[in-house]
């Protein structure tokens, strides 16, 4: 996760999560001296969802799946994660609110010393449920809205989904639960982006998290509606401009980008263009500390049947299953050759990623998109939108050490 507002406007509000791609929801400081030692864990509680979104990475369904982790198994998993030192669990799905033990699990996580946060479509959140989750210890709710009313409802496969999500946002805000927008940018909804931010800001939301499409689950089926690299660049530039405009008017919104670390290089270029060399260097240094794409390192996923994945998007390959081994044993297993190489990917990247001067702050972008596009997990990310001249010329400050 990359915070535009922190990097360009120097606003890292409490709870900013630059280091966590799943969780804009952490209280850890955004920029730290130390690299994060344990991953944020996304737990897809269920495959079931009350909506049917076109871009769902979890390929959620209207039915539950056989073999979903039970409440007692979930608690043992949380014990396991707590003893391994996991800082944050992001309860996700499917739609996590279709499980009637969500509050119990959130409470159990909080009592175990794990920060519980939620990713939801918001449509099942009543004022009572929002208060119940707050009382259980929920720290943050990210609610997905993917366009203005008509476009969102079309995308989400249900009329009224936009209004229901808005009611959910209001319920969380009224219950004093920190709440943010999750917006997956595609060709279809890119034009709505600014209007959605304006509308939700009026509602009291001040945190906006923009996801690039990754090619897992149904996201793979709609890769043809992904923005082209040129359109992506334009969309990210618009977000940067919008963030600065808001801040210039005294509105301290937080804007964050997830899922495409070419954004890191772009932000350095953007800072250089608008603020000069020193600002660009500062942005670069922050992003270097952040460590680039977090797959297999700072982010992990446990799916509803207990399979452990290197990111929540990469559901087609699992490292192991928490019913067979503890999460920590699976995550620390250095005999897994793929995990090992993904972690050491700087040595294995090929093509333009191998040569790129932003490799240290990007780390090759999405290995899953590379696999989908090139049948090779170490090939270049097809959605990198930086120009060759940008990635070929090392930033002059990079090696200066000052």
């Amino acid at each position: 996760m990359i915070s535009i507002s922190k990097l360009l406007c120097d606003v890292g509000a409490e709870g900013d999560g630059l280091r966590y791609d799943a969780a804009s929801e952490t209280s850890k400081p955004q920029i730290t001296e130390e690299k994060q030692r344990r991953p944020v864990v996304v737990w897809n509680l269920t495959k079931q969802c009350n909506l049917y979104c076109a871009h769902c990475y979890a390929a959620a369904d209207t039915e539950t799946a056989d073999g979903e982790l039970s409440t007692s198994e979930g608690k043992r998993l949380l014990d396991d994660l707590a003893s391994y030192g996991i800082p944050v669990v992001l309860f996700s799905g499917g739609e996590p609110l279709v499980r009637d033990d969500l509050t119990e699990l959130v409470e159990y996580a909080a009592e175990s010393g794990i920060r519980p946060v939620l990713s939801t479509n918001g449509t099942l959140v009543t004022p009572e449920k929002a208060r119940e989750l707050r009382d259980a210890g929920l720290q943050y709710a990210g609610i997905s809205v993917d366009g203005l009313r008509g476009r969102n409802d079309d995308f989400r496969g249900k009329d009224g989904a936009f209004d229901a999500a808005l009611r959910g946002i209001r319920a969380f805000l009224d219950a004093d639960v920190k709440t943010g927008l999750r917006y997956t940018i595609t060709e279809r909804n890119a034009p709505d982006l600014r209007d959605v931010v304006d509308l939700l800001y009026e509602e009291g939301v001040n945190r906006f998290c923009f996801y690039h499409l990754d090619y897992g689950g149904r996201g793979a089926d709609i890769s043809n509606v992904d923005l082209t690299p040129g359109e992506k660049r334009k969309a990210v530039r618009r977000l940067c401009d919008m963030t600065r405009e808001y801040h210039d008017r005294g509105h301290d919104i937080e804007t964050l980008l997830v899922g495409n670390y070419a954004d890191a290089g772009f932000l350095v270029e953007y800072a250089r263009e608008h603020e000069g060399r020193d600002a660009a260097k500062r942005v670069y240094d922050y992003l270097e500390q952040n460590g680039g794409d977090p797959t297999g390192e700072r982010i992990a996923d446990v799916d509803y049947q207990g399979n452990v994945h290197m990111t929540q998007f990469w559901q087609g390959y699992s490292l192991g299953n928490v019913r067979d081994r503890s999460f920590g044993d699976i995550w620390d297993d250095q005999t897994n050759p793929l995990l090992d190489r993904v972690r050491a990917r700087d040595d294995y990247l090929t093509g333009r990623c191998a040569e790129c001067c932003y490799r240290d702050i990007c780390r090759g972008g999405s290995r899953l998109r590379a696999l989908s596009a090139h049948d090779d997990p170490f090939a270049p990310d097809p959605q990198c939108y930086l120009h060759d001249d940008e990635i070929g010329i090392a930033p002059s400050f990079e090696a200066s050490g000052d």
Partner: protein
Amino acid sequence: MVEKPQRFRVGDKPRDAVETEWEVFVRDEDDSPLRHAGGITAPSLEIAYEQATKLFAWYAVDIWLCPADGVARFSTHDLDDDAEPVRIETGGEDRSFE
């Protein structure tokens, strides 16, 4: 003297909702051991092999695939609700090592 491990038979719950989960085993070189390298979700053996090739083709000489429900797992890890303790009569003598 080592303590006998208390193992459990991990239950047979499905590992994928729609397709099949395949356990992957790879051998790096001709004389190296076969090792477990995670699981792949795919609708058929052919597609599982295709996926495994993309993920491991860069080095493995052997790739073995086994449907996840064809594996019986015995583990000291007992997260699974269905985990059944397994006892085997070993003649009463503790195992020992030098």
